[in-house]
């Protein structure tokens, strides 16, 4: 059975479980039609020119895991930023785990997509925001067709959420081949602030494919600080679509740390819909082996006086393949834009590859747009300098790589995340570091 047929028959199974007369199910039906037409993106599609999804979609995935697995806090503690108090929305094989989570409905909602979709109380918000931002492409539509669970965050006006919200998806490996399709909706009201940590983690070495879609709405003067930690098992792959809509004076900061996973594709789309918004897209990628990480970013400036900053630092070793596809689109009315994009890459081995395509499409004349892309190596003289002072080569290299990635690390606002990322990098580079960045 082809993947498409498998999907179509699974959809019938889904219809037995959900309310087929609901508003959301109409959307699901439409999305399924779109998926039937669009299919899985191929290499001949410009957006997937350098990333082949073939090896992911030739398997027969289980879409609805049966068994509920009990996992104790101790099993997963190390994957959480457990040193800090946080709201937690935790899923095991795509199913919400209430005993591991800590949600709230007090003043603002940090809860489940399934309850938001089924509870009439949230109908207004769902109708206004759900699936309004996600674009129609094969994989997003596939997610929309099967979406029923994920995190639902709704922060009202004038609230600064006092602690970070951690959204973690675990897969247990009870199924040999599991595909999950989480769907998150985040609505941040005027003048509000929120910090979110998102992670997908496989607990076994069975094949896992996650096709995730997140929609984020940042109202006027709001601040969203989002961290994606991607350090999954080498058998797990992630296709992530994150859509962000920003209103006047809002700021959305997105950090993506990609260290693990077999194939990771990050589609980040920012739509600036109000004046004086600021978008920050930062990323650090350090991969080796046969890993493949693809960052595909879009910043669409549709209003004047806005800014966007992108900074991606990437290091590739062994047979790793990296793709950076950054696009800045400036509409005719979006005057006085300052758009900046920087993509620096280090190729450590001769067999690693980077394919970069930083694009600018500009229709306004009074703008400052620039992008820079470099591919190079560590400075031999700097290495020699350190070795001459008694620092072993391995450590010296690690130091240089830390320095290379540091500008992104410095913009991390949560200290615990910063030290965790620092440790992950140290692990990745195989060194013990005696300093805290």
């Amino acid at each position, binding site marked *: 059975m082809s993947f498409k047929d498998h999907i179509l028959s699974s959809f019938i199974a889904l219809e037995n479980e959900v309310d087929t007369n609901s508003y959301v199910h109409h959307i699901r039906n439409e999305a399924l039609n779109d998926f039937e037409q669009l299919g899985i993106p191929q290499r001949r599609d410009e957006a997937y020119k350098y990333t082949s999804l073939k090896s992911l979609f030739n398997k027969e995935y289980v879409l609805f895991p049966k068994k509920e697995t009990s996992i104790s806090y101790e099993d997963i503690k190390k994957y959480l930023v457990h040193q800090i108090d946080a709201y937690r929305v935790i899923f095991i094989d795509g199913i919400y785990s209430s005993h591991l989570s800590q949600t709230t409905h007090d003043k603002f909602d940090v809860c489940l997509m399934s309850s938001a979709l089924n509870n009439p109380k949230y109908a207004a918000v769902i109708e206004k925001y759900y699936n309004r931002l996600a674009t129609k492409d094969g994989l997003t539509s596939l997610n929309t067709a099967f979406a029923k669970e994920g995190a639902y965050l709704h922060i009202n006006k004038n609230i600064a959420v006092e602690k970070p919200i951690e959204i973690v998806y675990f897969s247990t490996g009870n199924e040999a081949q599991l595909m999950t399709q989480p769907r998150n909706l985040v609505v941040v009201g005027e003048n509000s602030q929120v910090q979110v940590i998102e992670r997908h983690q496989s607990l076994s070495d069975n094949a896992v494919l996650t096709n995730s879609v997140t929609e984020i709405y940042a109202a006027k003067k709001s601040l969203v600080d989002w961290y994606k930690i991607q350090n999954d098992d080498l058998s797990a792959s992630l296709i992530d679509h994150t859509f962000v809509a920003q209103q006047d004076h809002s700021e959305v900061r997105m950090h993506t740390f990609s260290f693990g996973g077999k194939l990771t594709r990050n589609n980040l789309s920012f739509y600036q819909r109000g004046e004086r918004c600021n978008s920050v897209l930062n990323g650090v990628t350090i991969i080796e082996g046969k890993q493949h990480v693809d960052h595909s970013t879009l910043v669409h400036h549709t209003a004047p006086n806005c800014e966007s900053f992108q900074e991606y630092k990437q290091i590739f070793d062994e047979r790793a393949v990296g793709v950076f596809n950054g696009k800045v689109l400036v509409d005719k009315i979006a005057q006085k834009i300052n758009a900046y994009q920087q993509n620096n890459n280090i190729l450590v081995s001769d067999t690693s590859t980077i394919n970069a395509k930083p694009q*600018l499409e500009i229709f306004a*004349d009074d*703008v400052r747009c620039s*992008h820079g892309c470099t591919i190079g190596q560590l400075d031999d003289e700097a290495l020699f300098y350190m070795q001459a002072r008694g620092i072993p080569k391995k450590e010296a290299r690690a130091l240089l790589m830390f320095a290379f990635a540091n500008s992104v690390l410095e913009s991390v606002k949560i200290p615990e995340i910063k030290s965790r990322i620092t440790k992950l990098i140290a692990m990745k580079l195989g060194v013990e570091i005696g300093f805290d960045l």
Partner: protein
Amino acid sequence: MSKYTEEQLEKELKNKEYEYGFYTDMKSDTIPVGLSEEVIHIISAKKNEPEWMLEWRLQAYRVFIEMEEPEWANVTYKKPDLQSISYYSAPNSKPKYDSLDEVDPELLETFKKLGISIDEQKKLSGVAMDVVIDSVSVATSFKKTLGEKGIIFCPISEAIQEHPELVKKYLGTVIPQNDNYYAALNSAVFSDGSFCYIPKGVKCPMELSTYFRINEGGTGQFERTLVIADEGSYVSYLEGCTAPSRDENQLHAACVELIALDDAEIKYSTVQNWYPGNAEGKGGVFNFVTKRGICEKNSKISWTQVETGSAVTWKYPSCILKGDNSVGEFYSIAVTNNYQQADTGTKMIHLGKNTKSTIISKGISAGKSQNSYRGLVKIGARATNARNFSQCDSLLMGNECGAHTFPYIENSNSTSKVEHEATTSKIGEDQIFYCNQRGIDTEKAIALIVNGFSKEVLNNLPMEFAVEAQKLLEISLEGSVG
């Protein structure tokens, strides 16, 4: 003129009419419109071509009919109907000229209007010239002087007759017949073009130059240029283009192949000023050109282009850096105005060790035009110590135009260094203010900034062309300089 502001400059740009839009009434020999195997047979027969050449063309045609017109470029246009084009139009039926006296006086008049009076240039600038009008080469000057050095510079149709071994050996080696849609079309129907061979160790004593002009209505220009620089030789080649103003779109699909053997150097400069269409975007030339060069060991190919004309431009002069230590360069200024569209750039393919490439691209868009840079830098796994530097700057004038960059970078070598940077901006008020502050009035400041913006490229043009290019750069700086 009191004060020269950006608005005025913009206005001037908008109103500037195409200066070369005259039509020369000459007897010409045009074959019926349409494309078929038969047409190719006719073209080949008219050219007295040997059997292998006809076979080569037919091969290309067979590949061509299987292909589809590509749509990925960032341009929109009504696809030319290839069946309504005449694929052969020769001015006058006389095949060759021995001296200028024999040339049709009207043709000479054309040259004068173009500002390239052959005899004058012969004496003054020492440029050897090949003029291609409606796809047939009409004059090649300085043949004797070049002949003494062993340099062959002649129409490609002549080269097919007289130097078949060279043509056979190199034609289609850089741009194979099946390379792309328009290259295949060109391979099938090309009617003339220039051929140049520089023997071993010879430094060509003068600039070689070709002038292209589409004259007859409803014809397409499909010229084919082949430049071969043998070991240790050097040549600088210039190419200029114009076409008369017409309401319908004319198609120009040329192929240029450069071959730089060991230690050779080729400098190829283009000033493209095909008719861009009128201010409403009507008419104009579709310029769909394939240009590519291959570099062997220690050789160098340098492309310099000034693109001011054509309704739609679609070209990527490229370098395949095959030999170790070879160097590729690309310097480009593309100016688009009114409804012009340009999608241009380069490909640098690094295969050999220690290969170097430089890309400097300057785009200036005004009116309602769209200007795109599209480039590829590819570093192969064996291209140790490869080095690339790319810089793409765009200048926007007015808020109805667009500037785009699509750089592709593919690197699979850890010892290589690749740098790419791009900026888009308008003439900054702060820049003008800075100049004003130092006693330079706005008029001069704009001239200075635009000049400075394109200087890196203009500097790379040979002297004779640099002057013309500056003139063509539609940014008319008259009244603002000096």
